[in-house]
């Protein structure tokens, strides 16, 4: 049994150490694309799984290697495993990719601001995702479909470099066959047998079926993709206070105390990662901020 907090040992500490991790077990490993994988985690016996809201992330600890912030990409409406999707790009994620079912991962969280699932009730919802940006947005889709009658039209626009880079392909097919959700996919470069749209994801915005004057847009992907998506949404008449983006920065603590994730006066780990665009628009183009 893991000993959790140092207040067992000394009487003078009355504040919990926020950097302690909770051990979770890997229930399933899913290879999504050649460099992206999903981990499904469950708490070690006797503990309840974390409740999270769409947009939040956990700090995941690989024993002896390090900790990284990874968005939660699972279903917040169900009592199921905690799902995280990530690319294997650094020291920690590369080791994480080779972990097996039954291995232990440390979890701290959930941290961060949330997508406006509640605020979007009564509006059309436009979800624009680029590359791995679909992962932090998937919980939004689950949430909205769970309460479908509270929303107007729902449009998912998803673009990747090539068809092989698409995440959650089976799920995309399921969503595409629904009548209460419009899914449009596109790739920058067509390979193999792809017969769908070719072009950057921003090209889908012009003809997407939503009311720009009565919608909430949620955008996630590489910063450049988000910058140009904002232009296209503006062109259609969506106002900046109805657009939401997700930012990414170096995080060491995830709780606003290490200073690494600062973007101007904002701490991305607690004021973000989800931001309403109008509050962020100046900072967005202040390079190397």
């Amino acid at each position, binding site marked *: 049994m893991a000993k959790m907090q140092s207040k067992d040992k000394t009487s003078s*500490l009355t504040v919990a150490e926020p950097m302690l991790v909770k051990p979770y077990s890997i229930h399933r490993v899913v290879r999504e694309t050649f460099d992206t994988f999903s981990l499904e985690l469950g708490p070690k016996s006797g503990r309840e799984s974390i409740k999270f809201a769409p947009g939040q992330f956990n700090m995941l600890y690989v024993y002896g290697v390090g900790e990284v912030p990874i968005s939660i990409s699972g279903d917040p409406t169900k009592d199921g495993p905690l799902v995280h999707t990530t690319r294997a790009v650094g020291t920690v994620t590369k080791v994480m990719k080779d972990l097996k079912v039954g291995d232990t991962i440390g979890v701290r969280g959930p941290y961060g601001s949330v997508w406006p699932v509640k605020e979007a009730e009564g509006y059309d919802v436009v979800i624009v995702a680029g590359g791995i940006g679909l992962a932090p947005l998937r919980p939004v889709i689950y949430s909205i479909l769970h309460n479908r009658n509270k929303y107007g039209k729902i449009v998912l626009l998803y673009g990747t470099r090539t068809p092989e880079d698409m995440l959650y392909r089976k799920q995309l097919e399921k969503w595409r066959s629904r009548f209460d959700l419009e899914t449009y996919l596109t790739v920058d470069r067509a390979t193999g047998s792809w017969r769908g749209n070719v072009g950057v994801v921003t090209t889908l915005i012009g003809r997407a079926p939503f009311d720009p004057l009565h919608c909430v847009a949620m955008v996630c992907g590489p910063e450049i993709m988000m910058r140009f998506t904002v232009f296209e949404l503006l062109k259609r008449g969506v106002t900046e206070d109805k657009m939401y983006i997700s930012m990414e920065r170096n995080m060491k603590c995830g709780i606003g105390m290490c200073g690494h994730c600062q973007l101007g006066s904002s701490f991305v780990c607690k004021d973000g990662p989800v931001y309403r665009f109008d509050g962020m628009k100046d900072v967005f183009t202040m390079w190397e901020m």
Partner: protein
Amino acid sequence: MNNETKTVIERKDFQTLFDALVAEGYKISGPTVRDNAVIYDEISSADELPVGWTDRQEGGSYRLIKNDKETLFGFILGPYTWKKLLYPPHKKVLEARRSGHGFDITGSDLKPSKKAFIGVRPCELRAITIQDKILREGQYSDPEYDALRRNLFIVAVNCTRPGNNCFCASMNTGPAASAGFDLALTEIMEGGKHYFVVETGSRAGRKVLEKATHRPAVSQETDKAEKAIREASVKMGRSLNMDGLKEILYAKFDSHRWNEIVNRCLTCGNCTMVCPTCFCCNIIDTTNLGGDQAERWRCWDSCYTVDFSYIHGGSIRATASSRYRQWLMHKIAYWQDQFGTPGCVGCGRCITWCPVGIDITEEAAAIREKA
């Protein structure tokens, strides 16, 4: 200022203040001379203070020199800040041990003691309250810092001789301590007399003072103390015009001045190490060779390193100019939006300890002027 609350401790009785603190169970830390500088460390007697020492500081230069009088607090500030004692440069945060398919976690075994700091300058006192906002008044707290702060006894020392690099007056953080101390002293040495005018700031302060040898202050003495502080506030070596500076910095984000500073700034990070409010840290996970034991350590970090802002693909602040800009703008502008006050207290350490003598007051003025 109410004369009734002021008392005097004579120089010959100064040790009784130490003894009173020890009797109340405090471990005392204060300034002492080591390696040609005044640093902060555990001390037990008044003789360990920098008796008869003062310093001369310029941009990029610090010299400890003999004072013409046997003052106890005749120096200004050295390279250490109190954050070294409250927020240690290296701290183990957790231990993990392999067990079966997983690992067990243990928190660090912390037993923070009751500490007393003697010799906290008003700018440093303000810096401590500024760090409180991040380390114990946010949604999460550092447990060791919080415990130390709750039990911390502060003997502040007002400044009667400001340094060449000091600008606390323009930052409204000195030269006198206004709040947050248990006792505040003003050292007076003239006309053959050597004494400390004492102001109590808390019940704990009064309790300790009761145990030390003291007597009520006469108006002549409190007048001298007030005069010395008043004179100090107009003799500051530098000043920083904070008027509208936050808005100016935001507006001049793209200014060329940031590129010019690259000709001088080495991004060595000295300024962040000696700054009393800088709090950035790194979390380092390690394991022993056998792999059966892992540890997590928190270490001081600096926004000047290239890796500081690294995410896959590269660093957000890749250029040196963007990193200098980040430090200055955070210290003066962003900090206000984050915590309600600037992060700079005007202690001038960054000017002294910068190897090339970059002056934050000069840079701020230059950005203000520049188109």
